[in-house]
């Protein structure tokens, strides 16, 4: 297996971007990634996307995006795993280069959510239609049920949940690409409108448009593109029962644990070696559960990590320095790739006021549905 590096990155700002279509968003991010690496061709394009079909009626994104990048003819396909589509595309790009099947892969993620689709219903299609959605549950509702189970098992409070949003907004306020560049207080979170008890509006990531792209190549070719490549040293994917009712402990995300273990094993590192991490905070409770399941904090200790400062910039393990899904925005298919870009920039020392000093090893964790799929990547500065 060949060693693989990320050698270029590009992304749009995240937010309600009315002036850009699905394809415009993709082209901006993809062209940015190619030009940052000085690359004029690629062997393969992978487009992470949850639901172009439901959001804007557009499927078949592989050829569409290759065409609009001026690269019709190049191998291209869409990769889907709900909100983990971007991370899953990165995993597949990693495998394609590592195996020697191709040399250069453009891994992109894109979602256009604000063109008028019924977002609640589209997102719910990542849950079990026959046994969950039929009865009226929503996506925030599923995470609310996870939150209640976590509260019952570990004594987690609504204030603990609020602190996750406060921390991530504080980080996101410093990110020029973020949808919400403003800080919030615990009081504001606890007074925001109720979405699904105990989750309030400010516990939830927003509806966003955006795209992100990275260029992968074999490590031994990386110097053709950049003098600061970032090595991909681990990748793990796992699944869990689709429906919440089919998981023994609804407060525990088994797919996150398994995908993390696989990535740590491949990278030959432990959670203690991780110096910066982006985890899937689609809802505040998700960050808490993902930190525990990935081993970045001990089981049952996730709830206090944000309030104590442990996961803030300057803390023991800064988490979601980009602002996370909560503040940066969550264009679902783009999220996994945008997480990779945050860690790529951190390990290159390019994160400005969000920089984690001396960071050498970083991790991203991207999750689909209510936790039925999870993808973890581990990166090392070269």
């Amino acid at each position, binding site marked *: 297996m060949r060693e693989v590096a990320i050698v270029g990155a590009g992304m749009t700002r995240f937010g309600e971007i009315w002036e850009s279509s699905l394809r415009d968003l993709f082209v901006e991010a993809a062209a940015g990634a190619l030009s940052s690496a000085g690359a004029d061709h690629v062997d393969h394009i992978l487009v992470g996307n949850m639901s172009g079909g439901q959001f804007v009626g557009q499927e078949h994104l592989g050829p569409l995006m290759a065409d609009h990048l001026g690269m019709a003819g190049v191998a291209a396909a869409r990769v889907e795993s709900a909100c983990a589509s971007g991370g899953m595309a990165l995993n597949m790009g990693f495998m394609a280069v590592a195996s020697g099947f191709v040399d250069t892969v453009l891994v992109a993620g894109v979602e256009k959510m604000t063109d008028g689709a019924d977002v609640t219903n589209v997102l719910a299609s990542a849950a079990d239609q026959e046994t969950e959605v039929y009865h009226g*549950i929503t996506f925030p509702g599923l995470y609310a049920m996870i939150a*209640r189970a976590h509260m019952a098992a570990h004594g987690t409070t609504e204030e603990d949940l609020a602190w996750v949003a406060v921390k991530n907004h504080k980080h996101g306020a410093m990110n020029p690409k973020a949808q919400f560049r403003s800080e919030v207080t615990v009081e504001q979170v606890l007074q925001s409108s109720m979405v699904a008890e*105990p989750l309030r509006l400010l516990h939830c990531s927003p509806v966003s448009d955006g795209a992100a792209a990275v260029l992968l190549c074999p490590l031994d070719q990386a110097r053709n593109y950049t003098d600061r490549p970032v090595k991909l040293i681990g990748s793990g994917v796992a699944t869990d029962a689709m429906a919440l009712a089919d998981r023994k402990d609804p407060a525990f995300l088994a797919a996150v644990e398994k995908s993390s273990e696989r990535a740590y094993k491949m990278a030959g590192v432990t959670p203690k070696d991780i110096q910066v991490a982006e985890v899937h905070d689609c809802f505040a409770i998700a960050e808490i559960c993902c930190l525990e399941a990935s081993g970045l904090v001990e089981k049952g200790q996730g709830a206090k990590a944000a309030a104590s400062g442990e996961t803030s910039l300057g803390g023991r393990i800064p988490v979601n320095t980009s602002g996370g899904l909560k503040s940066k925005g969550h264009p679902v298919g783009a999220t996994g790739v945008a997480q990779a870009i945050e860690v790529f920039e951190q390990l290159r020392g390019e994160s400005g006021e969000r920089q984690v000093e001396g960071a050498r090893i970083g991790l991203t964790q991207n999750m689909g549905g209510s936790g039925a799929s999870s993808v973890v990547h581990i990166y090392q500065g070269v």
Partner: protein
Amino acid sequence: MPSPRYWREKANRFHLEAARCQGCGGVTFPARTICPACRGTEFETLYLSRKGKVVTSTVVHVGPNEFQMEAPYAMAVVETPEGGRLMVQVVDCEPSDVLPGLEVSLEFRLIRREGHGGILCYGHKGVPVG
């Protein structure tokens, strides 16, 4: 939701038909052809009792279009005495009272209307006991 799709699910939605794995004894609801716990393929059909206990719950304030008229409404994962678990709406009570541990009976109710034809779709909802 086209009619064949609704009709196909009647066994579990109308009768709570489940399956007990002959290999590991695990109960799956709705019934499947492969046991998710042990991959066994020999099953005995059983019908879940129309009662259970709330495992976890929420109160949905922002619902899907088809359910928004009912908001705020309680949803719960309920476990029956056989060990089958199902997602149901819990009604005829204060939604905020639906918390883990609550005992409910499972009653046959209207769940939603299908598409423009407005075909009535049924299933089970929880109602607190006592």
